[in-house]
């Protein structure tokens, strides 16, 4: 089937060299799914090219509109000019957006809780299951899931690319936030599969920018015989939903990610803080007071007015907000930049914290940094610019990168490289050495967390650690795999669990159990575990488990396991003094 398609495609394109035509169809496209905006880029045979939608936008609003029986995503934005979705339509309750903030999160997650103020239905039961999400269609809540919404969006995006390339597209490289858990990554993969896209790579956003930077440096070196000295770049990315930092060391076309850090903080939080500041009883407005449609309309109007004000404050010292929210509710206020910065103090502190952490993880000081690269919509906020540059002791940021197009361009570059495309000019002669963004380990020593692969380990990676039993004659042990920065297991994301059975009878602490974690170049995580001492006929075979195993990130699994088994299946880290 597919081959036929390709034949048709090359028939229609009679010009151009055949070689490029043949290798073309398999080249993965680059997609940057943003919380607020998405973009898509392709390798056109010579360079990266960002595609525009029918409204000539490169950055397309991320949402899906539910109307009667038709669904339409922000890629086309309502297809025709007459039906074009206005911002107020998107905020009318019938569109779902911010999928990237909701995907793969449980209803106990504070990000989901904060999303209840969005103008569509986010219902939570607070028991660690996925939230209920619905759009208002003909005064009825129609349920959906973040995966479904994302898939519909991707389907439209795929159609756009196929229309442009005139042949089917299958593979894609997507950028993701550093803070995404492996479980969330599987949700993105699921959404892509639903849209008929195969994920070749999921790239943390700042590492995609690092790749673009490496390409530029490589080009510079070829052009004016540069020194080829290693260049350290700090990449700071803040969009609507997430904030990420990466420190990369670049030389000779190799971009080595030295450290990564990220958190779920972005423009959406800034927006909510300002809305709360403008309308002190904002939360009561969000809580089912009054008729639903009126309430949503008021929330939408406030959102639009606030967004506008935030944009203005990027270039002005103060701005006036005058909004009639209906039902006698009015907001009239002069907002100064100082006030704005005061209201968002906590967000700026979080940004500061992850930059400091990233630098210290990379074992570098601000003086080591050659370039500071600022990307993402919120990097235009003056306070954020000055904060990042201040921490890095730099006067200005790196200028040769577009702050909104860098991530998707990097993804398209990676797509071309990973698809095996070579370029005679050497512009694809690049390599990214990725690093793990979070600690990976298992629950041990009670509720503790033993990190087996620490964060910022170069990928591919493989590490192991020895554990022992906590009970006499313990026959079974539970391997509960977590990912995160918390010292307690339950503070981290549970990725999956399995039991080692048939442990030979022995006093507690005498058995040695090896747990090995392996991340391959495709970022697939496998956990190997088994008894290594004592050895004998009866020793059970090792287990190899691909993670995550949880198909729905049940937040309550850890607790349920604890309730069911208590400490009967616990493991302890084998003391280091015996095993230096």
């Amino acid at each position, binding site marked *: 089937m597919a081959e036929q398609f390709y034949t048709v495609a090359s028939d229609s394109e009679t010009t151009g060299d055949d070689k490029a035509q043949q290798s073309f169809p398999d080249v993965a496209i680059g997609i940057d799914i943003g919380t607020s905006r998405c973009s898509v880029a392709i390798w056109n045979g010579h360079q990266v090219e960002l595609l525009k939608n029918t409204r000539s936008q490169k950055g397309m609003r991320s949402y899906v509109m539910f109307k009667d029986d038709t669904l339409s995503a922000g890629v086309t934005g309502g297809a025709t000019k007459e039906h074009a979705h206005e911002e107020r339509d998107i905020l009318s309750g019938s569109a779902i957006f911010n999928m990237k903030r909701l995907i793969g999160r449980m209803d106990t997650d504070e990000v989901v809780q904060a999303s209840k103020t969005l103008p569509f239905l986010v219902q939570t039961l607070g028991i660690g299951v996925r939230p209920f999400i619905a759009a208002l269609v003909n005064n009825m809540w129609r349920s959906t899931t973040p995966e479904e919404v994302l898939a519909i969006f991707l389907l439209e995006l795929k159609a756009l690319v196929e229309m442009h390339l005139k042949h089917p597209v299958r593979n894609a490289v997507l950028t993701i936030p550093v803070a995404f858990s492996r479980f969330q990554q599987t949700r993105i993969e699921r959404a892509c599969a639903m849209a008929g896209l195969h994920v070749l790579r999921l790239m943390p956003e700042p590492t995609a920018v690092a790749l673009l930077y490496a390409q530029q440096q490589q080009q510079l070196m070829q052009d004016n015989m540069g020194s080829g000295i290693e260049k350290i770049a700090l990449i700071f990315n803040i969009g609507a939903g997430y904030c990420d930092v990466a420190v990369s060391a670049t030389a000779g076309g*190799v971009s080595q990610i030295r450290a990564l850090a990220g958190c779920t903080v972005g423009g959406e939080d800034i927006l909510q803080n300002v809305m709360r500041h403008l309308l002190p009883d904002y939360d009561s407005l969000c809580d089912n007071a009054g008729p639903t449609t009126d309430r949503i309309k008021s929330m939408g109007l406030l959102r639009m007015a606030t967004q506008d004000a935030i944009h203005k404050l990027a270039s002005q010292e103060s701005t006036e907000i005058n909004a009639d929210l209906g039902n006698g509710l009015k907001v009239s206020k002069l907002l100064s930049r100082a006030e704005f910065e005061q209201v968002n103090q906590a967000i700026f502190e979080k940004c500061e914290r992850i930059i400091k952490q990233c630098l210290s993880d990379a074992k570098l000081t601000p003086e080591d940094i050659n370039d500071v690269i600022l990307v993402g919509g919120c990097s235009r906020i003056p306070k954020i610019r000055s904060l990042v540059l201040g921490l890095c002791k730099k006067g200005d940021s790196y200028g040769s990168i577009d702050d909104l197009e860098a991530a998707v361009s990097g993804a398209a570059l990676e797509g071309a490289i990973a698809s095996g495309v070579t370029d005679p000019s050497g512009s694809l002669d690049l390599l990214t050495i990725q690093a793990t963004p979070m600690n990976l380990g298992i629950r041990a020593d009670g509720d503790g967390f033993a990190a087996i692969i620490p964060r910022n380990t170069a990928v591919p990676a493989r*590490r192991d650690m020895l554990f022992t039993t906590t009970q006499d004659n313990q026959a079974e042990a539970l391997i509960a795999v977590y990912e995160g920065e918390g010292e307690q297991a339950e503070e981290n994301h549970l990725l999956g669990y399995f039991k080692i059975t048939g442990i030979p009878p022995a006093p507690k602490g005498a058995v040695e159990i090896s747990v090995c974690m392996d991340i391959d170049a495709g970022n697939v995580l496998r956990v*190997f575990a088994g008894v290594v001492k004592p050895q004998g006929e009866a020793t059970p075979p090792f287990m190899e488990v691909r993670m995550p195993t949880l198909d729905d990130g049940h937040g309550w699994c850890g607790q349920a396991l604890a309730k069911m088994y208590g400490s009967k299946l616990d493991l302890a880290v084998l003391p280091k003094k015996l095993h230096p």
Partner: protein
Amino acid sequence: MATFATSRAAVMGSARPGRVAGPRRCVVTRASAMMAATGRTHYEVLGAGAGASRVEIKAAYRRLARKVHPDAAGGGGDEGFIQLHAAYATLADPDERARYDRDVACRAAGMMMRRAAATSGPAFRRRTWETDKCW
């Protein structure tokens, strides 16, 4: 499963069992165990001399990464890169490198004895540098 058995047998024969146990993929697990498994020092892996500067180590790492990294054109499996990175991580850090150099010198002294032991006894003795107290 056959590979399991072999790796376990090796573990059983070693002075300090356990660390390098597991399935095939896990045989080479630690930077220190690497040399024992491949018979190559970190310097040999990087193709660098004992007196190589930090800049030379880094350059060698990048040059080789472009050959052995699984993402590189013609790159192999994960093993080559994991070895290369372990060598680089040790030698690019001045403290780690000093400790490693000390251990290698210490090992050279013990090498003769070990070789004799290995040829006489049937069991292959896999050892790790940290635990080899030669003095």
